[in-house]
């Protein structure tokens, strides 16, 4: 059992949770993830490790399906039955020179730990975060404190640049020498944004989020095609060379259980509708 030490909403439908999990916290590195199973009947879901503080790990997630909504309903002092990790390979952080860390939507959650390690390794770190609108932006202050420079984009222009994070990245790539880029967000955003660095061949990592079960290389549910080869995101990734990833296949495989996810969520909301959990923050 792992105790929830702090739980709060960060943005519309986006939640932040600090959990006491020493076995994960003490060994976690940038780019790694953990697997959460809330209770006996729960499914195992992967969540990126967003930050570490002593024996605590932070996870940030969007409450979209049954499990993430159930997770969002947990309060300080509640317990999560199982947390396994840290899983996956750490980000390949070296002293590259100037690096850009791009976060899109809830994917911004994964950027602080990467930005911090990249900076500690001696890089000049440019942060770019983008979201649909200002209400979906998260971790702005935190990233401003970590990155050497931070730029913001919103689709509707309600905050920062009016447009996509990809546009801001394009500007940086055009204006100065960029040595390495991380792009983390929804699959479609990573696909589009990584096209920015494709022509110049700048080393670019994306963090893939396929469906997983065990998260330890045992089931192959998370297999993705990278450079024409089958790789397991859980043990070979989750970060891969963005320019080698078959994003269309990733998105196709992510959709496999949509009907079941709807069914599960509908059932959950029916059972919880009176407690107000379903009401969004904001």
């Amino acid at each position: 059992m792992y105790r929830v030490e702090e739980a709060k909403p960060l943005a519309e439908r986006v939640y932040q949770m600090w959990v006491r999990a020493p076995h994960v916290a003490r060994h976690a590195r940038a780019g790694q993830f953990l697997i959460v199973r809330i209770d006996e009947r729960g499914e195992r879901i992967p969540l990126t490790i967003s930050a570490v503080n002593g024996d605590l790990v932070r996870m940030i997630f969007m409450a979209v399906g049954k499990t993430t909504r159930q997770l969002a309903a947990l309060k300080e002092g509640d317990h999560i039955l199982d947390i396994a990790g840290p899983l996956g390979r750490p980000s390949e952080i070296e002293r590259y020179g100037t690096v850009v860390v791009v976060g899109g939507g809830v994917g911004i959650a994964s950027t602080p730990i990467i930005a911090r390690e990249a900076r500690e390794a001696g890089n000049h770190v440019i942060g770019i975060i983008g979201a649909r609108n200002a209400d979906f932006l998260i971790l702005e202050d935190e990233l401003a404190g970590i990155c050497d420079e931070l730029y913001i984009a919103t689709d509707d222009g309600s905050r920062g640049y009016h447009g996509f994070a990809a546009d801001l990245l394009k500007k940086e790539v055009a204006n100065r020498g960029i040595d390495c880029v991380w792009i983390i967000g929804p699959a479609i955003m990573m696909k589009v944004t990584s096209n920015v660095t494709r022509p110049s061949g700048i080393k670019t990592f994306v963090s893939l989020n396929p469906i997983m079960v065990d998260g330890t290389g045992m089931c192959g549910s998370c297999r993705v095609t990278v450079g024409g080869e089958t790789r397991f995101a859980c043990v070979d990734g989750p970060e891969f060379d963005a320019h080698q990833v078959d994003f269309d296949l990733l998105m196709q495989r992510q959709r496999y259980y949509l009907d079941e996810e709807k069914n599960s969520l509908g059932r959950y909301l029916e059972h919880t509708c009176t407690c107000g959990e379903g009401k969004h923050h904001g």
Partner: protein
Amino acid sequence: MGDRPAEIRVHDFLEVDTGLTAEEAVQEAERCIQCKKPGCVKGCPVGIDIPAFIAAVAGRDFARAAAIIKEENLLPAICGRVCPQEVQCEGVCIMGVKEQPVGIGALERFVADWEREHAPTLPGVREPSGNRVAVVGSGPAGLAAAFELAKRGHKVTMFESLHAPGGVLMYGIPSFRLPKEVVQAEVDQLRRMGVEIRLNHLAGASVGMDELDLYDAVLVATGAGLPFFMGIPGEQLSGVYSANEFLTRVNLMHADRFPEYDTPIKRGSRVVVVGGGNVAMDSARVARRLGANVTLVYRRREEDIPARRAEVDRAREEGVEFLLCANPVRVLGDQLVTGVECVKMEMCDPDLSGRPEPVPEEGSNFTIDADILIQAIGQGPNPLLIRRLSGVSYGRKGNLVVDEAGRTSKEGYYAAGDVATGAATVILAMGGAKKAALAIDAMLRGETLDQVSEE
């Protein structure tokens, strides 16, 4: 004694084989002629004194029978169910020459179940030795090793990456062959012997190598959990499962009870399973229980099927269709699986394993409709820990290289089970684990291995 009717059991996950009653067990035990030189003991990878326990059953002293078995094997309720006795103890039983061999497996299971229900006892545990041993993985090899080490007074800490102990016994073998409460009971026994089990802990990740190095010995028993894929076109389509994934979703995550449990699974209406081993049979039979029509495709002939004969027969009884001498070459569909293109296989000269080499028959391609394809073509060692183990040697297939005693090339590190041998059976893993545990014990006591084997 016997199996529940196929038309009933195919709708549930309850145990197929109902086991022996006490009367049946005594009757079966009386068939044993108590050979002076019992071949069965030699045929047993863990060397149980089979004639002695059978004599105890014949004399209705079931508690004593259990005690005799447990001297060599803590997990008889598991072994009695999943050991391939027909090629081990029962395979060499003298009674089998003229009639049926004595049902040693059924008797072992009876005794174990009887003990669990009537008089559970713990084996004697020696005075604490002051030594700490880490066991990585809680599958058959890990459990067997932990048992031997705990019995000898060593403080054992097991690390299990999943949320439940038992490894393949939990995620791989379906409950209709091995009820999960049986596994649970055996694990509880270990806990009562003082073994600490840390779930959700991945050695090399949640537990650093530097932390493992602090133990007086480490036994790596991480199994062969990495599923192989065939590498054919269309394999990325949604609807292609590894047997590991399909079985894990049901056995460990209870996807058969979705949405009561949160993990989903596609039940499919036409399921194709590739492979001929026990894992393939398990997958096919689980798919039947989820309501699908199931075709099992195997590239060799009936007599080459490596799965246990009894499980092949049961799969057939449950309505699994067998398509032999055939092999998938392509998965058809756009996003979702719609069919499997297969090719007929001809049997040519024996290959290295002595079995006829199957060769595709040119132009024999044909298609079968399918919405799910489950690949059960084997597993390799999980690379997760192995990658992080520095100073150990690996074999060609990624397995850890060990000597007779289970020692790796890194001092203080031992390995047993599938991670050392490649994918094999539960009992072989246990046999190897026991050997490694005895070697660890000898090392910790400053003895040589010769002294151990003389004991």
